């Protein structure tokens, strides 16, 4: 192809030649961005997954939905009554109020969500923001607090409730520990570096610890390079704007975390939402994007990026990664995978959803994760090809303006990761991952047998138990605390209004006795509060479970 470019009649013949040569060479013709080539007879969907993928999203019987609405109706009526009394001065106002001098201005404090906060959230507020006073390991200590005016103010009695079983902390591998032997290197680094960095990554905040950590993260995940940031939320919200901008398209899952949503909105790109884990919805959006292009000008999108999470923390469902990767390859989109909850928690050696499905980490363009959940530290990382990470080092808001990770925290992540990879000479890391898998399967199996409605994949350590009725949210959390078990209950703004739930996070540090205590308490409470809505207990449908699934039964 040594033809010099000859301009003839204004056309570059060189260009034509190139196109023809392309056709002759590989039989592949590029037209409109879609390659028509020789395609291998595709793998059928059944063999994309190397092991069974079972997820449950059972719907409650109809009477439950009706009674939930009855409960919300009564709550709303009394809310209006109380608001009326507050507006007319019959009752003391405890919320923030306008100043007298500004009464004629546009109101600052009124909208519907405040109605819900004032009238329903305030009544059960004692179940959230409970101060703890020990490390959030498998058991922790709570400070006891009481309220004299129905949750508007609290005061501490001075007592601590000791050894409450912790079913709420994201401590999947149990690295939140205070054992001095385990923290030897962290103490050493603390004495060597101190705690403050006092600078950003681009100025003087890059230490040798950061370089060591980034190399270790890249090795752990099997990618070329990685970059670490001081805060997990900021990793998402500050780096997505650096990767996409105006003229790009973001396809984001319905139930993505607020950090992803914030990052997507800040970037200025067009956002389209597909139904949760629904590949048909995603494919339809991809096809429409490629066929119709940008809204008014009909030009091709500059970039199409798919935002998904590894494990969704409110549902406990795992992303269908093989199908998304095949879609991404077919339609030439990019994939951003947020493994906040799945890194360390799933996969045979704890390397996240990519390992769980047996896939190649090169298939995912941007691997993001946090160190808060499984590593007992704080911060986040973004990993991928070296070009991507080098770009982020210069263009990310977080790198330019945010303080970098402090050295003892970096050392904690290094020691946890080395433990997981087996580089410290013991098999403790692998044991933790296996213990987490065992605990997860045992916990979920027992809850299914008891008859509760549990959402999510059988392998995810996040276990949401559905409560539905607003009255039961408060009753459940309070009674579990009386039995010395700390749980997290979630209601309206974070979940759909009729599907409030209690979310359990199983940890590798939980022993079988602790799980049994929790399960017995749940059994008792489930009977008393009538929470066992499931119409299919496991024992009545044995054909739903494959025989070749591993059941770790002791």
């Amino acid at each position, binding site marked *: 192809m040594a033809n010099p470019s000859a301009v003839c009649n204004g056309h570059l013949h060189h260009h034509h030649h190139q196109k023809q040569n392309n056709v002759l060479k590989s039989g592949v013709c590029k037209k409109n961005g879609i390659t028509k080539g020789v395609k291998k007879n595709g793998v059928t969907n059944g063999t994309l997954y190397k092991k069974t993928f079972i997820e449950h999203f059972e719907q409650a019987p109809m009477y439950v939905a009706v009674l939930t609405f009855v409960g919300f109706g009564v709550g709303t009526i009394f809310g209006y009554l109380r608001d009326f009394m507050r507006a007319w001065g019959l009752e003391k106002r405890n919320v923030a109020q306008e100043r007298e001098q500004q009464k004629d201005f546009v109101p600052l404090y009124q909208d519907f969500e405040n109605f819900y906060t004032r009238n329903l959230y305030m009544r059960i507020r004692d179940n959230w923001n409970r101060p703890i006073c020990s490390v959030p390991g498998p058991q922790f200590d709570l400070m006891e607090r009481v309220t004299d005016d129905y949750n508007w103010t609290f005061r501490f009695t001075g007592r601590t409730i000791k050894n409450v079983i912790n079913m709420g902390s994201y401590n999947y591998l149990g690295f939140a520990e205070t054992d001095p032997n385990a923290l030897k290197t962290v103490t050493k680094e603390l004495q060597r570096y101190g705690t403050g960095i006092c600078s950003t990554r681009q100025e003087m905040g890059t230490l040798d610890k950061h370089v060591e950590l980034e190399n270790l993260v890249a090795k752990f995940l099997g990618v070329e390079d990685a970059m670490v940031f001081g805060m997990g939320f900021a990793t998402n919200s500050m780096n997505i704007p650096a990767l996409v901008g105006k003229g790009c398209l973001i396809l984001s899952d319905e139930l993505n975390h607020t950090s992803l949503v914030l990052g997507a909105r800040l970037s200025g790109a067009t956002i389209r939402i597909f139904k949760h884990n629904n590949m048909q919805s995603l494919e339809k959006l991809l096809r429409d994007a490629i066929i119709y292009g940008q809204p008014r000008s009909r030009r091709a999108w500059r970039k199409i990026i798919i935002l998904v999470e590894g494990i969704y923390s409110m549902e406990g469902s795992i992303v269908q990664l093989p199908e998304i990767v095949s879609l991404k390859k077919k339609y030439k989109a990019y994939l951003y995978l947020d493994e906040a909850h799945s890194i360390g928690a799933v996969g045979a050696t704890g390397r996240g959803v990519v390992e769980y499905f047996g896939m190649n980490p090169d298939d995912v363009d941007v691997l993001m994760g946090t160190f808060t959940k499984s590593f007992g530290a704080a911060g986040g990382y973004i990993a991928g090809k070296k070009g991507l990470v080098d770009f982020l080092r210069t263009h990310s808001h977080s790198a330019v303006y945010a303080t970098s990770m402090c050295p003892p925290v970096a050392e904690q992540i290094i020691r946890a990761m080395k433990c997981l990879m087996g580089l410290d000479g013991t098999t403790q890391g692998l044991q933790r991952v296996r213990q987490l898998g065992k605990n997860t399967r045992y916990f979920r199996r027992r809850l299914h047998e008891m008859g509760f409605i549990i959402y999510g994949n059988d392998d995810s350590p996040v276990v949401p138990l559905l409560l539905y009725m607003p009255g039961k949210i408060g009753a459940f959390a309070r009674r579990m605390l009386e039995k010395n078990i700390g749980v997290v209950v979630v209601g309206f703004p974070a979940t759909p209004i009729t599907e409030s739930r209690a979310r359990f996070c199983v940890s590798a540090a939980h022993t079988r006795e602790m799980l049994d205590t929790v399960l017995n308490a749940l059994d008792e409470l489930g009977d*008393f509060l009538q929470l066992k809505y499931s119409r299919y207990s496991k024992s009545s449908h044995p054909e739903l479970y494959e025989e070749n699934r591993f059941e770790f039964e002791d």
Partner: protein
Amino acid sequence: MDIKSMKNYLYWLFCQFELITCSYLMEPWEKVLFYTFNVTMLVMLAYTAYIIFPVHISMAFQFSPCPQHSSSAYRVTAQLCSHSC
């Protein structure tokens, strides 16, 4: 023994009612208001049933063995009007 388990069962039913209608979350004076309202509605319902029920029963029995009365419908409506006054 039976009375005790009966009382426990009734207490448990009352707890379920409290949980479902969110009266578990209410302050005491709100609970009083809510229960008064409910009890009043139930009493009114019972009273209305007590008044209307015998009329329905007697009308039902009146219709059974006479198929040839053409003005039975007229008589029934007259009876209903006289009872409700």
